[in-house]
């Protein structure tokens, strides 16, 4: 199962600039964390030390921020300089991205509300934002439950 470990490690490196930095200074980190062959370890080390790893991390974070920034921009603004730190903490606690943008945004709001040390300036707008995104999500779930017809049935095409 080392390919599985390799793929997980590659994704972890992509999601975490801190892990990349750690691997650059201490390559053994990868062997300690993942079950890798020597070749896989060299490959991942090569990626962590490459110029491109910076771009990987940048795009990964930008893409993961997208559903939150698109659906709750006011929350991001209210968090100000704390946003980056809180996003990292959220992603550590939820390493699996949900492709459903509303689920991702609602989950982030819920995570923030559970934080005792949330910046006080952000709390009022956060509660409002959470209620709104939760309501939007509830609507899409209700629509899914209520759908009585096969959505594809309505769209059958003749062979073109």
């Amino acid at each position, binding site marked *: 199962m080392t390919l599985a470990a390799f793929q997980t490690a590659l994704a972890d490196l992509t999601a975490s600039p801190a892990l990349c930095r750690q691997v650059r200074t201490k390559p053994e980190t990868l062997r300690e964390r993942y079950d890798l062959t020597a070749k896989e370890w060299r490959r991942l080390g090569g990626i962590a030390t490459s110029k491109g790893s910076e771009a990987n991390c940048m795009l990964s974070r930008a893409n993961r921020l997208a559903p939150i920034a698109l659906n709750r921009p006011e929350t991001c603004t209210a968090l100000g300089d704390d946003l980056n730190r809180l996003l990292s903490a959220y992603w550590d606690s939820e390493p699996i991205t949900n492709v459903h943008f509303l689920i991702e945004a609602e989950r982030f709001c819920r995570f923030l509300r559970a934080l005792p040390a949330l910046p006080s300036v952000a709390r009022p707008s956060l509660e409002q934002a959470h209620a709104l995104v939760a309501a939007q999500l509830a609507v899409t779930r209700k629509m899914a439950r209520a759908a009585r017809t096969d959505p594809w049935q*309505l769209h059958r095409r003749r062979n073109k």
Partner: protein
Amino acid sequence: MTESWKCNSVNPSAADTMTTGMTRITPMVGLLYNPAVPIVLDAIGARVDFVEVIPDRLWYDCGIGAPHRFSHARAALDALRRYARDRAIIGHGIGLSLPSVMPRDAGLLDEVVASHRALNYRWYSEHLSLFLVPNRSLPNAQAGLGLPVVLDQETLALIGSKVQRLSEALDTRLLLENGTSFAAIPEPDMSEPAFFNRLHAETGCGMLLDLHNLYANTLNLGISADAYVSELDPEIVVEIHLAGGDWLKGHYTDSHSRLTPAPVWAWAHAWAPRLPNLAAITFEYHASSHKRLSLAGMPREIELMHALADKVPGSRVGAGA
């Protein structure tokens, strides 16, 4: 591999180029469908032979195990149905992540198959990129961050088995697209063109050659596009993608935000006529860039694609690419 490629064209301009009794047809010209594409189709739809649809954008996925997992974007489906009525549709998936070591997502596969039954894709493509890994997933806002795969026998066998099951489930031709990477995996056991050639030889899976992805890789990784294409079996390429991107802190991104850059056009004109099974030329752009691209010359881009298609001798429709 089951051969079920439907060779009848729905587009008059393409159909006109087909000689009766011959088995060659000019490649179709089309757009990757996004919410802004209907504006283009309203304006110059007669020049757009097909739309390429990302089925994953037609539903909301609450995740494996969720009750009522998929809810469908019915308004988007209705719009697609209207605009695709007289056009071919090609399916272009991003969710199945064939190179991942995890078993296939049966629920998602069922949904993809259902979409094919409804929309009748000419063929279906996926990516030679990782979007899912064990216990993790990659945020792919617009398939913007697929990770590179290890090019070795183990990955070839893994993808090959999934390709065969997917093509059986869909009962249509399957293509795999070359991806972009900011950091190539060192010490590959084989080159990427060799990987595609072998995958085709072993499974019949064709290739979607994304020339802009290749362009990005020449800029970011320093690879030679000429060497890449020279090593590729020209018979396996069924579709090419064109697009434009942006620079981000010294890295060139496949952001689908610009018109096709000049070097990519030069490659397209040099290489497309040598691809005997080339059947479609697709321009990809992001909906958020629609206003700028339209004003800058979307109609011209489409005419350039037709000019390119006219230079291609014609694909051998139904041949085993």
